[in-house]
């Protein structure tokens, strides 16, 4: 790791290595397609968001469905180009230094994006190759990670579609971890999991941060999860970052006893109400 960091500094002039991610006034508007059957309105999915994730931190983005969490994560992972604003990851600009950024990050999405018919091992070996980890190096690492995730080693050669959602999600996290990212982007890593798998994934995320030099940005629409995992929480509402701080700071600032009340105060609604259906303030 130390070597990687030094390499990183050499090419970056003004980089502050205590900062993993710095986003400045990021905006993303989705416009309906023109032409045949055009209709609908433009959606301001991310609206002027600025945030900083410190190195080694777990930053939790909390927001209702449709509040722009996934869009923001996609911008950070170079899958979407922002309309305005600037994002730097360990000092690299995500647009100008795209390849360098890609080497430093990995992302886990809500839906486990695997080749369904390939086995966990095949999927992970492929992932390793894409990030320059040779199969011989990857194989023992994969076994170790899967063992820690409590996955029966006999199942690694079964087609992935035969494994449960929870198991697939764990393997998705294992895959991200295999490439030793400096910044891990987790988009609702526990959504749709049963309580037990949820806890296992949460523990794994914590361990990752504690034992390795990883910085984690995760999104969630689960208040408990944000409180349990995140060192700092940002609340996203209709594409805007409306509050930011540690759970206790947020409670103190708003004079309430729970994160739930903070959420109600800053957004004017409950977390399980979708941003898509209400008000329409997110559209223009």
């Amino acid at each position, binding site marked *: 790791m130390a070597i990687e960091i030094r390499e990183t500094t050499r090419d970056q002039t003004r980089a502050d290595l205590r900062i993993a991610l710095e986003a400045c006034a990021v905006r993303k508007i989705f416009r309906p397609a023109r032409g045949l059957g055009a209709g609908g309105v433009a959606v301001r999915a991310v609206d002027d968001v600025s945030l900083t994730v410190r190195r080694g931190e777990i930053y939790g983005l909390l927001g209702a469905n449709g509040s722009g969490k996934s869009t923001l994560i996609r911008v950070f992972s170079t899958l979407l180009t922002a309309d305005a604003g600037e994002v730097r990851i360990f000092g690299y600009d995500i647009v100008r230094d795209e390849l360098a950024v890609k080497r430093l990050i990995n992302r886990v999405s809500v839906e486990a994006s695997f080749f369904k018919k390939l086995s966990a091992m*095949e999927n992970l070996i492929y992932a390793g190759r894409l990030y320059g980890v040779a199969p011989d190096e990857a194989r023992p690492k994969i076994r170790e990670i899967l063992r820690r995730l409590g996955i029966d080693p006999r199942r690694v050669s079964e087609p992935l579609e035969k494994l449960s959602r929870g198991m697939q999600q764990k393997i998705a996290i294992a895959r991200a971890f295999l490439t030793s990212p400096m910044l891990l982007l987790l988009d609702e890593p526990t959504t749709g999991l049963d309580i037990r798998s949820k806890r296992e994934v949460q523990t794994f995320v914590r361990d990752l941060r504690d034992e390795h030099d990883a910085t984690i940005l995760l999104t969630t629409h689960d208040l408990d999860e944000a409180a349990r995992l995140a060192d700092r929480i940002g609340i996203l509402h209709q594409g805007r970052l409306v509050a930011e701080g540690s759970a206790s700071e947020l409670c103190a600032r708003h004079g309430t006893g729970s994160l739930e009340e903070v959420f109600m105060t800053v957004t004017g609604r409950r977390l399980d109400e979708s941003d898509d259906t209400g008000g329409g303030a997110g559209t223009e």
Partner: protein
Amino acid sequence: MATIGGQLGLAYAFVEREVALSKRYWAWELVWLVYGVVTSLSVAYIGLAAPTIAGGVADPAAVSRFVLYLLVGTITWRFLGLIFEQMGETIAWERWEGTIEYTFMAPVPRLTHLVGMCGATLVRALGFSVAILAAVTLFVPVDLSHADIAAALVLLATGAVAFIGLAIGSAVFPLLWTEKGLQMAYIVQAVVLLVSGVYYPTSVLPVWMQALSVVSPATYVIRGMRAALLDGADVAAVWPDLWPALLVGAISIPVGLRVFLWAERHAKRTGRLKRSG
């Protein structure tokens, strides 16, 4: 990582992945293989039955030539078509699997990604074509005694190169139009089949279709293949059909790549790469 060796290693990831996928989807591969063999065999039988169908008697040498004429067309087309389909489906397939964002997020230059996919595609197309040819020769006598195999192989390699550029270009459709893009790519392929003289000389086509056949590299490759396999034309003799195919490749590969990169940027700006989650 910037070295050629490193990039080839990255490209190999795609070859290995496609081979693994072929094994897991073996039943479908079997379907395509049977389909290919049956199509080629049927066409060969049309050739054998031509005198009966047309109601005349024909000299056996002429019939045998006719059968080979049709077979060269159908098998060469299968080879080129497989390249076109698999490359054209690069995007659509990964979108269907749900892996597209993972692949596009990986630190792999797009050129390396596409080179890897081309490698995988060529391996598969070659395997299929050889298997179909072998199966057909079991049922139909194929007379290759006058053939210039070297010239045929050069033409086939050139055709592959020429088709890769077009196929990369057609892979762009699903990037731009998430719903109907793949259908558009198939229509392009069907039109290429019609105008390239796969089963007949292009001279029988209406003049406006002949204009299209001039720009299809398949026209030259198939005509050259016939000259090489039916009449034993050597590389020098098929040159008039070789250079246009080379030219199409030399133009279409860089242009196809440019268009692909442009479409990728467009998809990332408009949120077309994938939407959901």
